[in-house]
């Protein structure tokens, strides 16, 4: 019997230089760890079903060596790439391999969220308490008092924080199946690491979920020691902060099932009879551009939607393009609606054919953009103090009063819709507009009749006073 490596390529064809030698420094823990992973993959017979995600850092070239599927992740993103892979190829085994700079610093949130979701991959975290590839700088995992190139007098934990204990943090999460911290400092510890790595991969083979193994690893180069003394540092110093042991093992339990949430069809969500509309061009329907503007909460966007819905039901080309601030209420809101018999070039409107302005800022902003032949309707309780461009027809309209007088103070938008119908600005049969208005209250049937009342009162006012 010959005891030798398994799971590696026979020749490292992708690597420049020596084809049977790694790029790692003499005595580096990465080589030991990868030997254990490769052996476990071979022994479990999963090489052809495994995708290994390499990190950024010294181990960036794992894909030179490991004879399985390989992907290289961007800096810190190996866990995010693995999370994507488990969704894209759910029947395959995914391994993510990261150092402590990669996982503990830039990529911590990706790793943490993957652990929190319990994404089904084996996550190997190589901790050597420093940034190795970049020259031995302080890492989140550096020990209290540890001298690194960026903490030459020793890590001051008051200034730079305490070492990040990733296993202990992940152990607060519900979804991980297995969490263990091991070391490759000596034979006894390597054998425990071997067992932990095999267990993490066995969990993947059985599809049981997320397995996290932190491996304390010597970096002789940046620990400024020979390989034996560096390994001794891992045992004597690192283990004080990072005690070895299994924090969690639920591998004997059943894999969690998805929650019993009944799927809904698209028809349920959109509307029962929506089939996607065939649009026939109607060249005799002229393009009209409507701008509705006011404070958020005044129903500006809804008003635009009712018009868009009515036009859409008539088979016309429609665009509805909202614009609003981050506030739910009180900020400025506007929407641009374009209705046309032909295809619409842009949903944005520079010069509206119809402007409906419900407050002063709306007038200030949009009235100067209006061109001759266009129509302005504005809430008449707002003083019109801005120069009206030549050729613009102006209709002051007491939308708020009409709404209040008819019992629905919030329905100023409905009143404005009625006004637009009566002024002949919508190019569509009255009943189609009324039907769209009723549809907009489908979820609140009690409001249909009261809004209809406001709508009719507004039409009566416009007919008598404006037309």
């Amino acid at each position, binding site marked *: 019997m010959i*005891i030798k490596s398994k799971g590696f390529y026979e020749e490292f064809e992708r690597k420049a230089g020596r084809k*049977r*030698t*790694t790029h*790692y420094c003499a*005595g580096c823990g990465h080589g*030991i760890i990868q030997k254990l992973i*490769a052996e476990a993959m071979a022994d479990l017979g999963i090489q052809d079903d495994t995708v290994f995600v390499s990190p950024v850092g010294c181990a960036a070239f794992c894909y030179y060596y490991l004879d399985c599927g390989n992907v290289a992740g961007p800096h810190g993103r190996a866990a995010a790439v693995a999370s994507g892979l488990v969704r894209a190829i759910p029947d395959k085994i995914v391994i993510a391999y990261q150092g402590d700079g990669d996982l503990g610093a830039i990529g911590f949130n990706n790793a943490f969220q993957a652990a929190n979701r319990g994404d089904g991959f084996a996550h190997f975290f190589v901790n050597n308490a420093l940034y190795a590839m970049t020259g031995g700088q302080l890492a989140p995992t550096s020990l209290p008092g540890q001298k690194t190139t960026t903490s030459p007098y020793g890590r001051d934990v008051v200034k730079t924080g305490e070492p990040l204990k990733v296993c202990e943090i992940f152990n607060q999460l519900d979804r991980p199946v297995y969490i263990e911290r091991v070391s490759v400092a000596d034979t006894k510890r390597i054998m425990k690491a071997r067992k932990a790595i095999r267990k993490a991969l066995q969990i993947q083979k059985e599809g049981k979920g997320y397995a996290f193994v932190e491996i304390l690893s010597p970096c002789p180069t940046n620990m400024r020691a*020979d390989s*034996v003394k560096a390994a001794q540092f891992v045992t004597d110093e690192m283990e004080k902060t990072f005690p070895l042991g299994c924090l969690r093992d639920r591998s004997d339990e059943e894999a969690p099932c998805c929650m019993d949430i009944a799927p809904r069809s698209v028809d349920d969500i959109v509307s029962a009879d929506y089939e996607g509309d065939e649009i026939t061009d109607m060249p005799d329907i002229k393009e009209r551009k409507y701008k509705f503007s006011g404070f958020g909460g005044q129903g500006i966007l809804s008003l635009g939607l009712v018009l868009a819905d009515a036009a859409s039901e008539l088979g016309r080309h429609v665009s509805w393009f909202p614009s609003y601030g981050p506030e739910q209420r009180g900020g400025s809101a506007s929407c641009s609606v374009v209705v046309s018999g032909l295809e619409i070039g842009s949903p944005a409107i520079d010069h509206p054919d119809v402007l409906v302005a419900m407050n002063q800022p709306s007038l200030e902003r949009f009235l100067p953009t209006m061109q001759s032949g266009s129509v302005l309707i504005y809430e008449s309780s707002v003083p019109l103090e801005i120069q009206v461009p030549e050729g613009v027809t102006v209709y002051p309209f007491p939308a708020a009063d009409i709404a209040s007088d008819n019992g629905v103070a919030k329905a100023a938008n409905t009143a404005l819709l009625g006004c637009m119908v009566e002024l002949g600005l919508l190019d569509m049969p009255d009943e189609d507009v009324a039907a769209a208005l009723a549809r907009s209250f489908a979820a609140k049937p009690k409001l249909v009749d009261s809004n209809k009342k406001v709508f009719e009162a507004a039409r009566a006012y416009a007919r008598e006073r404006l037309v």
Partner: protein
Amino acid sequence: MNAASSGLPRPVIIIEECKGCGRCVAACPKEVLRISTTVNGMGYRVAEYVGEGCVGCAFCFYNCPEPFAIEVHKEDDRS
């Protein structure tokens, strides 16, 4: 009689793959490995077997960071 022909367990060090880190020497419970004076093509003084005393535990193999620098051959590979 040398180790290879005796059928006794023995480490086989591939000189050109060894980086002379000394992990195997430190790990060997029988203290039968040492750093030699032989310098390989990479410039490392490589590990060597003293020639007897190996029990085939493979601690050297698992401590070695290189995939192909050391193998442990045991008696049932006699052919």
